[in-house]
């Protein structure tokens, strides 16, 4: 069965890169450039995984995750944060979110899709 992913990044280039890498690996990908859209799409599509940037224009990715966790429909979806914030800032809030993962930018294009797949049960 085709795995379905919601990918959220406010940088159009990075969004395209992640989308293409996942599609090449056989994912069905839904994209969003902000957290609110991502939440709306996630509620509608109920994907197998959400791939999310942390610094988003409307709210932090971790805040969006808190909202998704509170909603019964989306609370069980694993979230992988793909972020350029690798100096330790905000790492605590990510660790405290259940069923979540972390990948730093720049990503390794050769292993990215495989890493994402590992977070799906």
């Amino acid at each position, binding site marked *: 069965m085709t795995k379905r992913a919601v990918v959220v990044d406010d940088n159009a280039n990075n969004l395209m*890169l992640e989308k293409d890498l996942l599609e090449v690996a056989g994912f069905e990908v839904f994209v969003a450039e902000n957290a609110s859209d991502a939440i709306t799409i996630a509620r509608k599509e109920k994907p197998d995984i959400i791939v999310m940037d942390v610094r988003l224009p409307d709210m932090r990715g971790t805040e969006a995750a808190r909202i998704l966790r509170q909603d019964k429909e989306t609370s069980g979806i694993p979230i992988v944060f793909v972020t350029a914030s690798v100096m330790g800032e905000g790492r605590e809030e990510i660790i405290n979110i259940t069923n979540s993962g972390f990948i730093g*930018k720049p990503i390794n294009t050769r292993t990215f899709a495989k890493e994402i797949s590992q977070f799906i049960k």
Partner: protein
Amino acid sequence: MSQKRTLTKYQEYSEGIINTVREPLITLDQDLRVVTVSRSFYEVFKVKPEETVGQLIYDLGNKQWDIPRLRELLEDILPKKATFDNYEVEHDFATIGRRIMLLNARQIQGVLGKERIILLAIEDITERREIENGLEKTRKELAVIKQSADEASEFAESVINTVREPLITLDQDLRVITVSRSFYEVFKVKPEETVGQLIYDLGNKQWDIPRLRELLEDILPKKATFDDYEVEHDFATIGRRIMLLNARQIQGVLGKERVILLAIEDITGRKEIEAGLEKTRKELEVIKKTADEASEFAESVINTVREPLITLDQDLRVITVSRSFYEVFKVKPEETVGQLIYDLGNKQWDIPRLRELLEDILPKKATFDDYEVEHDFATIGRRIMLLNARQIQGVLGKERVILLAIEDITERKEIEAGLGKAHEELTELAAELKRAARVKSEFLANMSHELRTPLNSINGFSEVLYDETFGPLNVKQKQYVNNVLTSGKHLLLLINQILDMAKVEAGKMKLALSSLPTKSLLNELTMLVADMVTKKKIEMLIEIAEDLPDIEADELKVKEIMYNLLSNAVKFTPEGGKIGMRANKAGSEIEIVVWDTGVGIAAENMGKIFEGFFRVDTPYSRVTEGTGLGLPLSKKLVELHGGKLTVESEGLNKGTLVRFTLPVVSRMGV
């Protein structure tokens, strides 16, 4: 402090005197309780030390000292007079019988650690009285003898015999006619050896005294009478005696033409008492002198103390002022003494707080400490003073004296205020620094984020292109995209190293310590440069000591250090050259040496190699190959582990040797 010590010495000295004086001496505090007692007091009055000190004087020796006259003296007379002399008290003590005492007392201020003490000297004059009474009696009797000699010689003789004073009558040849009973008793001679004898032959010639000869043979024939002729003589039987001789030449009594009546008074005991008294008086004088000196000393203390001191009488008029008071407050002696304190220095001292203190507080409390007063003086400006005062009874000839010490704490306050301000500024500065550090830290995090975001696209897309995921590239396209990818990775390395340097310098770099299997790790790390070594036809020598211990360190950091040093060695060594790595145990550390036979470092560049972005110009290295941060960052990472990193080179083209240590057990405690 040395002044205080001197005062203590005086007190000890006084106490010493009290203990050596034969005269019983006792010191009382103002409640009439015994402070100290001389040894002789215990001996004369048969009381024990443990029953004496701290006791009310009246309670001593089972209340034997509750003497009405003593009460009168201590309670009525002394408070009014402060001193009295030769107050005679007669009392019948249960232990030692009836005694006549002569009391001398002095009230002394502030010695022996007491505000007011009474020094009481007790002279037991019982015996002296007896002697004096005896003498008086003898004199009276002599007068009677004289009167009745002409008329009744028999009566005279009987008188002679009843007199206590030894009496002897001689004829004109100085032979003994009669002798009084007391003469026999006192001089231990027998009647049968006496009468008819030459006086000089009495008691086995003991009486052959030159002074007596002089008196009887030279003086008496000329004067017919003499009084109180003092003779000192050492008798074989009764020892050294001092006698007072009184003689009369009487005509025609006792059936003789001329008779000499000689009264011999043994004054040895009295002399001793007198000598003792004299000594006591001298000693008392010494005590008095000491007391005077102590008083002078106190005054000199007042004058030498740096602290301005002022003494006021009970009307708040100035009695004395210390020199420093004049100096500090710019007032003149002639404008000060006798003035009301408030009027000093043209009424500059009329300070409400001072009035409050002297008129309200001091009368109630008698003492106060560290009363802070701020006042604007016309002459010396605004001053902050700390006032300490004591009310003292009966010194300097005044009933009540106020001693006021004034400490000018203006400068101290200024310093304190300055310190407070400096502290505030420092606190602000610290907060500012903390804020700046936070801003810097945030800036670095933001920079990191902002640089990585485009690099994610550059490296990501070029990698995907290079991998031909979406279709094949021609050779040129593939080479170009590879160049983009290589540059992108170099840029990423640069960003990472710059951020690491910044982290180390900000003290934010944390080590993730674990036990590292050093031997296998180092072997593995040399493999990382194996490709480069092969490509450049370089020979690599690995020497790892058999006993090299495992170390406690951050694995990623150690890998980074080793990779930086090994890749540098390869980069700066020409084809066909040699590089090597040696690892040894060195005490509680391991020492790793990475060496090469390459380009080396010129002496003038030795100082620059740790500055960052410095790269030796070399035909073998290309700009893209290094960041110029590898060595400085490696040094910082070694130091973070508690090790040391040094670089040695004999000069250009003489090769380079980098030596660093890492502790076996981490000293970081993380």
